[in-house]
Every structure is written in C-alpha cells, then in structure tokens.
C-alpha cells in the first residue's frame, strides 16, 4: 500500500508538485498528465478534466486547474460586508479590472455580465456567484461601481453579482497580484490627465468546493466555452 502511494507520489511530483504540497497527497488520483475524459473518480477536486495546455501548474504564476482558490477575504464594494473566497460554496467566476479602463476590462466585465444574463434567462441565477475584483480601490468607489455596472447593463442588485474592492492599493496588490497572480502596474499616459494601468487579463472558474476548474487567460474570454464549462461544474 505504502509502496503504491509512494510510487504515485513520485510520478506526480514531476508535474503536480504545488498541488500535492497544498493538499497533502489526498487528491493524487486523477492528476496523471494527459488524462482525458472522466478523471479521478471521487477523489478529484475538479469536475472538468485537465485543460489542454503547454505548462504544468508549478510553472504558472497563478492558481491553475485543480489548485485551491486563494484564501482571501475581500470587502464587497456596494455593501458593508466581505467575501471569504473559501467560504463560497457554489461555482464562482472571478475577474480583475478597473472601471477607468477602456480596452480590456469592459470586455472582461461584459463577458461576466453576459453570463449573468444567461443565468437569469436560463433560471440558474442563484447557482453561480460572479466576483469582479477591482484593483483600483481609490477611484472605484461604491458610487462609481454602481454607475459603471449600470452602464455595462449589469444587474448590480442581483444576488449573484458582487463587486469586490480591496481596502487600499497595497491590499489590492496583495490580493490581485500575490494571491490571484494578476499583475498590474500604474501608467501615466501622456495624453491623459489620470493614471491608468497595464494589467494581465484572467478570469477564473472555481467550483463549489473552492478548486480552480479553469483559468481563462484571455483578453476576450470565449463566452460559449465559459458557459459550457460552468454548466458542467454546476451540474456535477
């Protein structure tokens, strides 16, 4: 028995080091590389199989497939509350943005908004949580985000949409960059009075047990793909 477990761990140590460290080997089954279709049986923390990708988890600067969602508590922007990521017990999407952004962020937010509308149209609005996280807490006040949500045709009062707003810039970096692996940096474009950001684009799909199912690394996430993945995760 021990021999089997050891051998398995050895194999996995090559490709899944980070994952094993954080889960003490419990979820070893199903992490074999290249596995397609149904994986892992009851021990797998994910519903979706490993994405087709070039890198192993430990090479990635962000939590990826099969890893736990970062353990953070972030204040909600429009109410006097906070969300602890690991207490979220249903499928959730996270994305990272700032509302003064003109290019990438509106696409990320509108994708999430389209998911919200799909959920509402298809009757699963209360089975998914949507967490857009601002990394510009100084300017993204409650009023600003409420207005922004309105412009983007988001139903900000629906229970499934929660703008998250770290308390200050330092905390934004700690949460968004250090925990979620989404780098951002202030810029001061010559033709503009205000500061902007360069930033990475990432949207996470996390399952109800708090494990990352997908990290969509795209400025224009494929909405159909997200909806299909979400459906599988919801119905698991």
């Amino acid at each position, binding site marked *: 028995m021990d021999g089997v477990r050891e051998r398995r761990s050895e194999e996995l140590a090559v490709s899944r080091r980070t994952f094993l460290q954080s889960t003490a080997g419990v979820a070893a089954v199903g992490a074999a590389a290249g596995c397609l279709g149904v994986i892992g049986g009851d021990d797998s923390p994910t519903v979706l199989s490993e994405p087709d990708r070039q890198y192993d988890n430990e090479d990635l600067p962000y939590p990826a497939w099969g890893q736990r969602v970062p353990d953070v508590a972030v204040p909600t922007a429009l109410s006097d509350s906070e969300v602890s990521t690991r207490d979220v017990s249903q499928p959730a999407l996270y994305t990272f943005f700032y509302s003064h952004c003109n290019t990438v962020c509106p696409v990320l937010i509108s994708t999430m908004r389209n998911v919200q509308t799909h959920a509402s149209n298809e009757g699963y609005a209360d089975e998914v949580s949507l967490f857009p996280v601002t990394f510009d807490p100084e300017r993204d006040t409650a009023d600003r985000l409420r207005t922004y949500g309105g412009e983007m045709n988001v*139903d900000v009062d629906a229970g499934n949409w929660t703008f998250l707003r770290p308390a200050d810039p330092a905390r934004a970096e700690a949460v968004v960059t250090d925990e979620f692996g989404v780098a951002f940096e202030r810029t001061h474009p010559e033709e503009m009075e205000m500061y902007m950001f360069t930033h990475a684009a990432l949207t996470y799909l996390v399952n109800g047990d708090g494990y990352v199912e997908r990290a969509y690394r795209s400025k224009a996430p494929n909405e159909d793909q997200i909806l299909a993945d979400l459906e599988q995760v919801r119905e698991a």
Partner: protein
Amino acid sequence: MNRRRVLAALAGVGLTGGSAWVARNGVPRPDEDVGGAGLPREVETLDAPGSTAGTAAVPVPETPTVVDLFATWCAPCDEQLEELRAVEGEYPEVAFVSVTNERVGDTLTREDIADWWAEHDGAWTVGIDPGSELLSAFGANSLPFVAITDAEGRVVTEYSGVAAAGDLREDLDALVA
C-alpha cells in the same frame, strides 16, 4: 491608435481571423480548423432603422461586406458608427452589418438595442451575437472591431479600434473597383 491588419498578405499561410484567434487563445474549436473560420455565421437581426427582424448570414454571401462588431456600452463604438455612416451611402454594392455580442435579457432588451441604434442614426442591418460566436470567428478581442470581407467571404482587412472613413474608403475602393 487603430491596429490595421491586411490579412490578404497572410492568405498563403491560412492565417484567417479564426486561426489567429486560436493562436492567441489556444482553444481550438472544431469549426475553426478549416479556412473560413466558421464564417459566414447566421445571426438574429433586429427590427430597427434600416434593419428587419429575422436572421442574416454574416458576412453576406456573394457580397463584399463591412462587418462592424459593437456594444451599446462601448463609447468608441459610437464613433465607429459615425465613420461607417459617412462611407456607407457611397458603396451601394457593399453590405454593411453591425452586430453586438451583448446577450439580451432584463437589463438589455432587443428594444433597447434598437433604440440605441436609432439614437445613433444606424441605417443598415443590425443583429445580435449572444455567445460571442461571431466575435470569436473573427478573432476580435476588443471593440469596436471592423472586418471587411470580399465577395467570396474572405476577410481582407480588419481593424481593432475605430476605423477611419478615409481608410475604409481605400479598402472598399480596392475591393469594388
């Protein structure tokens, strides 16, 4: 500002909008493995000025087509519409189609989109692309996005960011001359 890519130069290696999308995202979709990137695609069209409710293939078959991908929340998309309006009347043989990838629902209805269209003096076919499939097929990752296709449906030019009327005229002159 705008990133203009003349795709004709890349035709030899088959880098259509669709495969460019794959290259950027690494998520191949079955219908994008072949040239043409899953185009044309059937979209729902709306009852609005210059447009009737129904469906339309985009790009329009056997017709040079200017495809404008927009969203009602996208401020530069207003500007893009203005540039397109300046050009549209000069090219009767070219089809113009504008499509939003916004999903209609309680917070944005078909009527809201039609109202937006009327407010901004839209005057041709306007449709919706819930699921962003057309967006994906063109490989657009920002809005506004304009693609010009020839009569065979090949993408000859595309713009990420506002395409100026002058540039559009150059493209269309080359296409319909």
